[in-house]
């Protein structure tokens, strides 16, 4: 019962973040929305790893967090200077 409530709340929150990512008028809006979506899905992954008693979910979540951080920083740098390098 508790699992359904927690995962349902996370799913609803993720759907709202995805809606903002679709309608967001500027590029930073979309970056913020996708960052929040990734955070919610990481917490859902950790909870699923606990529920199924499988540690592979945690490895995926850690790599997902790192990739999300690098992606957000790269997009921010691109928006600032229109140039990813240097």
């Amino acid at each position, binding site marked *: 019962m*508790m699992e359904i*409530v*927690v995962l349902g*709340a*996370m799913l*609803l*929150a*993720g759907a*709202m*973040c995805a*809606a*903002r990512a679709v309608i967001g008028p*500027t*590029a*930073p*809006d979309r*970056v*913020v*929305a996708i*960052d*929040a979506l990734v*955070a*919610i899905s*990481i*917490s859902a992954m*950790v*909870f699923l*790893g*606990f529920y199924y008693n499988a*540690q592979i979910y*945690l*490895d995926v*979540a*850690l790599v997902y*967090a*790192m990739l999300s*951080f690098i992606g*957000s*920083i790269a*997009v*921010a*740098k691109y*928006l*600032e200077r229109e140039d990813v390098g240097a």
Partner: protein
Amino acid sequence: MIEIAGMALLAIGAACSLIGSIGLLRFPDVYTRLHANTVIVVGGAITSIIGTSVLGGLGSFTLKALLIALFMFITAPVTSHAIARAAHRSGVRLWEKSVVDKLKEAEG
């Protein structure tokens, strides 16, 4: 006892995720939406990861989960700062009812 604590942390995290998502949909511009993003990451995700690791008990699962929480705790402010700065530099407007823009004043 410790299961009740873990479930309470999980419930708080899920509720914070929902509240932050509503804020992300309803707030008027990027800079206020970053505030809702912080509620989702720190209040929602990190709290529910800590709740899950409390439920999991001592072991390698808890260690990895806390490592993920620590990583998110370190990187969330960096990401928010970078996005806010990039949005301001690339000319995203503030909401028309905003009262102060310190970065614009500092840059002249």
